[in-house]
């Protein structure tokens, strides 16, 4: 590697965004506005070394950070969804917007579902990609989420969802609203199979995503500073005509109001998940693995008949 191979041509977007340096090399922390060198940022898991602000992460990156040896297989929905079912057009045709976004982000839609091991325990993780239309939830997202939940049931794996989404995808109209009950059904199937479902709320988790699977975790974890809420702050301000309290809809605020179990620093997330998953899935002192949903071993140990 030398400075020539390291140099990356600025993308068109950057010219519009008016950053004076290519953001592949330097990123400005959105909170403290410090310029951060990309290597430093990457080694710090995209958390600002100066102010601890948790920057948004691409879905693939998150999966790498969570799974053992950064290794996972992706899970796809069994069938492609209808492209632009409503023939929606705002200032641009939705079909075109989708294609452009796919080209710009290198992902098919706003979610990636990965399957692998976390601390040696099998897990399926559904991760939202905010870069793709604000992580908005439409049919493709719903289908992939359900495919992930079903894969977890099939392989008796734990199911985790990391949300980073503005909510339902308006361009899919009512069909995006229908992803609320659909993703809830995915969660129900996991829970009814006796498997753990852990919701990890990253910035932001709002609208239809917060009003469905993201708030139904057996355990509710959030990243520090994440915006979490149902209605947008601007909508609330316009409705009530008052300024909102400091820290409103931030993870810490929600935890203090009793809405979250834990706020976990990104550096600690993987270890925290391993600890929780082991506590739930390896309940015996020997560490011998127990099939979840089978209380027999635990009951036998306590001298009770199995159920």
């Amino acid at each position, binding site marked *: 590697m030398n400075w020539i191979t390291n140099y990356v041509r600025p993308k068109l977007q950057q010219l519009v965004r008016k950053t004076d340096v290519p953001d592949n090399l330097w990123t400005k922390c959105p909170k403290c506005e410090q310029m951060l060198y990309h290597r430093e940022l990457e080694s710090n898991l995209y958390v600002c070394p100066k102010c601890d602000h948790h920057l948004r992460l691409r879905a693939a990156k998150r999966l790498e950070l969570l799974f053992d040896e950064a290794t996972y297989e992706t899970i796809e929905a069994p069938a492609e969804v209808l492209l632009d079912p409503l023939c929606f057009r705002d200032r641009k045709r939705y079909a075109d917007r989708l294609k452009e976004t796919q080209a710009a982000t290198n992902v098919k839609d706003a979610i990636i579902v990965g399957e692998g091991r976390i601390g040696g325990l099998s897990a399926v993780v559904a991760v939202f990609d905010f870069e793709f239309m604000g992580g908005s939830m439409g049919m493709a997202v719903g*289908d992939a989420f359900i495919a992930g939940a079903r894969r977890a049931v099939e392989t008796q794996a734990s199911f985790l969802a990391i949300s980073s989404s503005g909510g339902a995808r308006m361009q899919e109209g009512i069909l995006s609203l229908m992803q609320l009950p659909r993703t809830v059904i995915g969660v129900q199937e996991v829970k009814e199979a006796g498997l753990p479902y852990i919701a990890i709320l990253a910035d932001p988790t709002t609208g239809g995503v917060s009003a469905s699977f993201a708030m139904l975790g057996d355990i509710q974890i959030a990243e520090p500073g994440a915006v979490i809420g149902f209605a947008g702050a601007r*909508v609330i301000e316009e409705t009530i005509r008052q300024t909102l309290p400091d820290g409103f809809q931030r993870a810490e605020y929600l935890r203090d109001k009793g809405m979250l179990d834990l706020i976990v620093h990104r550096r600690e997330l993987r270890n925290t998940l391993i600890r929780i998953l082991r506590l739930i899935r390896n309940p015996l002192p020997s560490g011998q693995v127990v099939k979840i949903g089978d209380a027999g071993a635990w009951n036998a140990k306590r001298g009770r008949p199995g159920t």
Partner: protein
Amino acid sequence: MADVRAPMRNFLDFEKPIAELEAKIEELRHLSSSGDLNIIDEVTKLQGKVDRELRQIYAKLSAWQKVQVARHPDRPHFTDYAKALLEDMTPLAGDRGFAEDAAIIGGLARFRGNSVVVIGTEKGADTASRVRHNFGMAHPEGYRKARRLMELAERFRLPIVTFVDTPGAYPGIGAEERGQAEAIARSIETCLSVHVPLLSVVIGEGGSGGAIALAAGNTVLMLEHAIYSVISPEGCASILWRRADQAQVAAEALRLTAQDLKKLGVIDRIVPEPLGGAHREPEKAVAAVGDALEAALNALRGIEGGVLRARRREKFLEIGQKGLA
């Protein structure tokens, strides 16, 4: 004598020609206290003209016009349905955690002979009642009450009937602090958990999360001119067009009419409204909804609880296979 409908007070923009004709009829009626045959004749003629106009206008309402009809102040609200369709209505209050939320009314009642748990969003009909019911916008307590009542239905194996008419869940500080998102999510979860028949009918406005919280049912009915959408046309316009004045365009793009939602498989049946909309003849609209609900309830009778639940989930999982090409 010609049909004696109560004179309408609130006319929508596109109902101008009808307003004029009805004003004329009113005038003639005042003159005809003596029972002048010519005047009665004229009134009958004009009434026929009104009907023709109404039929024409209402046969091809645009999405935006339907939004206005769905929000019409004279349109029957949940309490009108409850009064006409339910006997022994026993409202049950409170979420057992924080408060009673009057935006959602629920309780035990008898519907056409059957004990049911009924839950509905109520917008209110005048200033005082609108304020009391918070214009049909529930706080988390409303959804938690709904959930509690659905669990009550589950316990006693009673069918659940929900009436949806809401601009959406209330966006406020307290609502957020007390977990609006979580309350809606749990309400949806409970709709999809119960082993009893769950019937929903969108009677006016089906506003986003606040609507689906009560409408993940076995059978979802919708009045002919009701609307059901992921976001209000105004909200959509200000986000996607960055201009609130594009609400009419957004209303078309969102495909929020009963007719489009039926094609998409999101709703199961459209309940026809009386000529000129439910607000013109509320009793007829209420009775039509009652008949449709009774038929839907009968169709689910005798189906085992586990099957009911599995079919309900299957129905939602299948949504999205039909587009509007």
